[in-house]
């Protein structure tokens, strides 16, 4: 049942840039293997090659000892190799069931067997813990739900080797737990699993073994039990990593910079009130569907019918669209990188400066100055790219995230809302982002962090607001700011 895979000298280049430099290692059948590496290290590329989405420039892959050459994902799937993509691959206009069976429709003669497909879909959705009708259009799902659909899609394929490329990047603890249970079950049934994640605590919990890649090459392979998280991190970045979080600074005093009261987002949030002071880092915790993202989208005028009182520096404002928010000095980093965060078909430069074009247009745009800005951002955010002129779609997931972050910080906002700011970012870069966030606060900006990683919220924030079912359940700070308290308020057990 289990599938044995071996990479032999796998190389891959994109144009002049070589991203895999002859990777060789084997995956032990029937285990859960963690694949670690910095952003842009080549993990996704290697796995796309394994799953038939890309071809290697050189080298080969052995499946159960036989060299196999997949020319399409369909061929790989025929061998039982299924990939859950890091970037979603869902047709937004189709329903969940239609997406899950796309290309693999069940038919009865000529006709699609929608009944059967719906039934199976309902079953896999139940397994991943997504409460949505199979007939819901994917367009209507929120990001975490789309991630669950991706997982469900892979489940429906009956994989013998399941590759999960950062499946939990947008999931909250509840869904993550359920996913782990599922993985344990699959492993028990003999499925081999490759698990890519930058959340080292998860890697520590669920994997039997880790393989580390750096700069497109194999670095190390160790039983998980023999490694601490710290050791994993050091292996990944190739140097000694000190503390992940900057030392906390005392919560600032003074008048609030952003004050929101009685805010409503139809269908998502009811009667939410909160405030942030300059220099303060305010976290938002909650389960998937708690309405955190939607609250802030409503606040920026992106969701029709939202209402409530908003004051910026004591002055009442009516933000009808993100432009008006930007004029008040408020910017928002979306959790949906591909759909809302970046123009993947644009160059890096055009993406970076889009929110701050005023600075580069006087009145003519100055590409030279934009290039300088890009060079500076690449430097300070650690964006790894072979070529500054390429399109954003050519960046690895984590590097896209860094670019998106750089973009919303370009206009020097007074208030910045970061929705899952470290989604898909490696530990080294995560640390940089945490220090960056603190620097922003120190400069007197108000920072709001929405995150599904509780440790991140606890390590970084002065206060954390917990949302449940569209309402603010509690705001925790100081000694009450613990994982147990957060979960208790988020799930409503307290």
């Amino acid at each position: 049942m289990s599938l044995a895979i071996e990479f032999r000298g796998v190389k891959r280049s994109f144009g002049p840039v070589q991203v895999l430099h002859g990777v060789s290692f084997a995956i032990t059948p029937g285990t859960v293997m963690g694949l670690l590496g910095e952003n842009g290290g080549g993990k996704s590329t290697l796995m796309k090659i394994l799953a038939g989405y890309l071809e290697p420039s050189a080298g080969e892959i052995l499946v159960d000892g036989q060299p196999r050459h997949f020319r399409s994902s369909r061929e790989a799937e025929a061998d039982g190799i299924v990939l859950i993509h890091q970037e979603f691959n869902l047709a937004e206009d189709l329903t969940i069931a239609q997406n899950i069976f796309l290309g693999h429709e069940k038919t009865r003669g000529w006709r699609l067997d929608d009944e059967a497909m719906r039934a199976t879909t309902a079953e896999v959705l139940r397994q991943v813990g997504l409460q949505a009708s199979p007939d819901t259009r994917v367009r209507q799902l929120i990001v975490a739900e789309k991630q669950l659909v991706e997982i469900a899609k892979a489940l429906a394929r009956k994989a013998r080797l399941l590759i999960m490329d950062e499946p939990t990047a947008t999931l909250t603890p509840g869904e993550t737990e359920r996913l782990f249970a599922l993985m344990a079950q699959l492993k028990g049934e003999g499925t081999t699993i490759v698990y890519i994640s930058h959340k080292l605590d998860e890697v520590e919990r669920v994997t039997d073994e880790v393989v580390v890649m750096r700069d497109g090459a194999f670095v190390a392979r160790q039983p998980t039990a023999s490694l601490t998280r710290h050791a994993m991190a050091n292996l990944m970045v190739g140097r000694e990593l000190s503390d992940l979080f900057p030392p906390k600074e005392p919560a600032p005093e003074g008048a609030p910079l952003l004050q929101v009261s009685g805010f409503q987002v139809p269908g998502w949030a009811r009667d939410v009130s909160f405030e942030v002071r300059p220099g303060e880092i305010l976290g938002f915790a909650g389960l998937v569907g708690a309405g955190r993202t939607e609250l802030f989208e409503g606040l920026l005028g992106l969701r029709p019918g939202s209402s409530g009182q908003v004051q910026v520096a004591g002055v009442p404002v009516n933000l009808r669209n993100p432009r008006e928010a930007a004029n008040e000095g408020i910017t928002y980093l979306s959790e949906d990188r591909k759909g809302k965060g970046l123009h993947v078909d644009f160059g890096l430069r055009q993406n970076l400066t889009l929110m701050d074009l005023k600075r580069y247009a006087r009145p003519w745009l100055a590409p030279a100055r934009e290039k300088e800005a890009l060079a500076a951002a690449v430097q300070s955010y650690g964006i790894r790219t072979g070529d500054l002129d390429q399109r954003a779609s050519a960046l690895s997931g984590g590097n896209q995230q860094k670019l998106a972050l750089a973009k919303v910080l370009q206009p020097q906002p007074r208030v910045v809302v970061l929705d899952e700011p470290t989604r898909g970012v490696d530990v080294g870069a995560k640390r940089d982002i945490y220090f960056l966030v603190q620097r922003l606060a120190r400069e007197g900006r108000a920072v709001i962090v929405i995150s599904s990683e509780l440790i991140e919220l606890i390590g970084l924030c002065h206060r954390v607001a917990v949302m449940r079912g569209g309402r603010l359940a509690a705001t925790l700070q100081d000694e009450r700011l613990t994982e147990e308290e957060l979960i208790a308020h988020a799930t409503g057990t307290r």
Partner: protein
Amino acid sequence: MPPAPVESRAAGARNAASLWGKLHGFGPVVGLVLLCIAGTLLNGEFATVDNGLNVLTRTAFIGIIAVGMCFVIISGGIDLSVGSMAALIAGCVILVMNKTAGSLGSPMLVVALGMAVALALGAAFGLAHGLLITKGRIEPFIVTLGTLGIFRAYLTYFADGGAITLDNALADVYAPVYYGNLLGVPFPVWVFAAVAIAGAFLLNRTAFGRYVQAIGSNEQVARYAAVDVDKVKVLTYMLLGVCVGIATLLYVPRLGSASPTTGLLWELEAIAAVIVGGTALKGGAGSVAGTVVGAILLSVISNILNLTSIISVHLNAAVQGIVIIVVAFLQRGRR
């Protein structure tokens, strides 16, 4: 940690949204009903069975083409050439029928041959479009803008600038295809209904239809799902070509001739029917039923304009334009 009972909220918000969605889906139907009421008020004769059948019969051409167009548009394509294609097919069919009339004996056989030619030509033209678009990787707009010129030029050439006319004897044999009826309902209406039902079935109940929607929604995803995107696209254009062929089959017995002005601007009408029917021009989702309603709605507008004389004849097009915009407004916000 308990696997939490997730997101009742998300579901709640969606339910509200989908109710609205449903209402909006009826935009064209609401528009059609309002138009019919207006028509009846303006002229009592509007609401008669005869008039209704007349309108449906004449909608058949555009309606059948629009059903095919619906697939092309949902898949993210477009075809500007359908009017010219219909004209050229009509011309060729008439030429073939006239030529074989002597040699083939039975006029029934000749008519059958003509019909076969129409369908074959439609499929062939569609195939050519599909191949140029997928293998040649040229924008559908450009390909079909080019063939729009080419088809019409060749018809003009064959007709030597004038008209190609069906022999009278044949015309009489062929006429019932348009003028005949079954159970009091004219043949073209039956054919239209059959094409629409088959189209709806194909779109919603077969893997092909599913792929068409997937490609229009996100071509990359469809490729990743191992859908043979090129093949499906080629098939949509062929399907449209066959629909044009069918429409031509009904057109020829009606007017019995083809000339350089035959089918002029049908492409706009067909596309308008699809879009008024609620399909987005950028593809991904749409419905055959909406398209049918859209096509009927467009003919009802001109029918009503014919029935009344309240405004200057020069302003007919303005009224049509306004009604189209208003109907589209009724179902806005689905984007």
